[in-house]
């Protein structure tokens, strides 16, 4: 009898269980499960988004690093190229300058030589003329002295020669 009573559903409790359970279900769905589930979903979405954004940022950084590396290599190559070019240009310029200087020097030396030659010739001519005049003078004086004293004439010649040597 007692056992039968516990396995026999009572109408009253069944009725209240139905009413209260359905009301609870409705209220919880509206005020608890709805907000909780949507908040959970939102947070999970935001976490997923954040993770994918982080992945994307990492990929971007890697890409950027690769680009930087490439740029660096390129810059290095450019620098090397420019240095080499500059070196080459400098060498060429030096070579050119040297050649020019040599030519100019040769030209100047040649010009100097010509000028020296000309001066030398002029000087020789002058010396020649002077010597001629001097010889004539000496000859004239010797001739005049010889007429008076031969020793004295000799002395005079020597004296003149000495004078010439001094000049």
């Amino acid at each position: 009898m007692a056992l039968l009573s516990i396995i026999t559903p009572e109408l009253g409790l069944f009725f209240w269980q139905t009413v209260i359970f359905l009301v609870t279900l409705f209220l919880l769905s509206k005020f608890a499960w709805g907000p909780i589930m949507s908040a959970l979903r939102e947070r999970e979405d935001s976490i997923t988004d954040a993770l994918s954004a982080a992945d994307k940022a990492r990929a971007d950084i890697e890409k950027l690093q690769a680009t930087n590396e490439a740029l660096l290599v390129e810059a290095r190559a450019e620098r090397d190229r420019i240095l080499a070019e500059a070196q080459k240009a400098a060498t060429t310029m030096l070579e050119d300058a040297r050649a020019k200087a040599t030519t100019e020097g040769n030209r100047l030396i040649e010009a100097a030589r010509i000028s020296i030659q000309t001066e030398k010739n002029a000087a020789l001519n002058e010396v020649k003329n002077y010597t001629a005049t001097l010889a004539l003078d000496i000859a004239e004086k010797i001739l005049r002295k010889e007429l008076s004293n031969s020793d004295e004439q000799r002395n005079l010649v020597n004296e003149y020669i000495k004078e010439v040597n001094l000049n």
Partner: protein
Amino acid sequence: MATKINKLLLILLMSMASIVCFAINPNDQIIEEETGQAQTLFNPGEMIMHHISDSHEWHFFNTETFHATIPLPIIVYSAERGGLSVFLSSKFDHGDTYKGYGILHEHIFAVNAEGVEDKTIAVYDFSITKNVTSLIFSAALLIFVFTSVAKGYVKNKGKAPTGVQSFFEPIVSYVRDEIAIKMIGPKYERFMPFLLTVFFFIWFNNLLGLLPGGANLTGNIAVTLMLAIIVFIMTLINSNGYYWKHILWTPGVPLPLRIIIMPIEVIGMITKPFSLMIRLFANITAGHIIILSFIGLIFLFKNIYIAPLSVGFGLFMTFLELFVALIQAFVFTLLAAMYFGSAVEEHAHDDHDHGH
């Protein structure tokens, strides 16, 4: 360590309190001995039945002079007794009859002028019994707890959960990820409110039932029957053509077998929720009976030395029941989700087993 000992002491204290609560029964037979002294004869079967059954009053304990009992509202309907009557159960104290109604062993009946039960008059009992009171309390508790949790999500929008919110969040996530999504599949969302409600309803009431003096709500067949009926109705409402085809004309099976399988499948539609009803009822009721039996031993033997053994076993069973409270909530929710899953499953592969 210290908190562990404190908790243990608390449990022990509660077990002791439950001894007091469960021990003495108002229906104990009183026999007049030759000496004229009244002596109660302990009847463990009756004590256990009293504790697992519903009651029209909330009884805690009795002493010689004092009955710690909360009277509960009686709501009865009978056309012959002038329709609906509402009064407190205390009107029935001392075996009284009231407004033409009487009560015996928690059964309300109409009485005739001589005060004898009149079986010709139909009486419908909608009383706020102990179980209904507990039901209202648990519903209020559920609504309070989970609206607080929901408020936490508004307050900590996009932030980590705090307080009670962080306690329930993994459980809610578990019900969603491990029960609903795994068993139902992509259409899980429309079942989430029911699955969460039923899970926490069963769990909370299982735990409340373990409290000393608590009502055995989830161990009552009317409650589990109603939950099973809802699962059955929700399965039918959400069932698709593939579900019915599978039941009535199982694909991929030879023709003679189909004719045999059809009635089996149709019966299976009923037995699935029926098993839900019996499983929850039997598990919870059995747990209560075992704990009460251990405690009853003390009073049966009238020997204090049996108490440590009884308390020890009772303690062990109480811990087991705490675990069972969760397991049964989980199992009920899981199986309900499985039945919903079979109802909404799309025709994908013929050879797929539907979990039966």
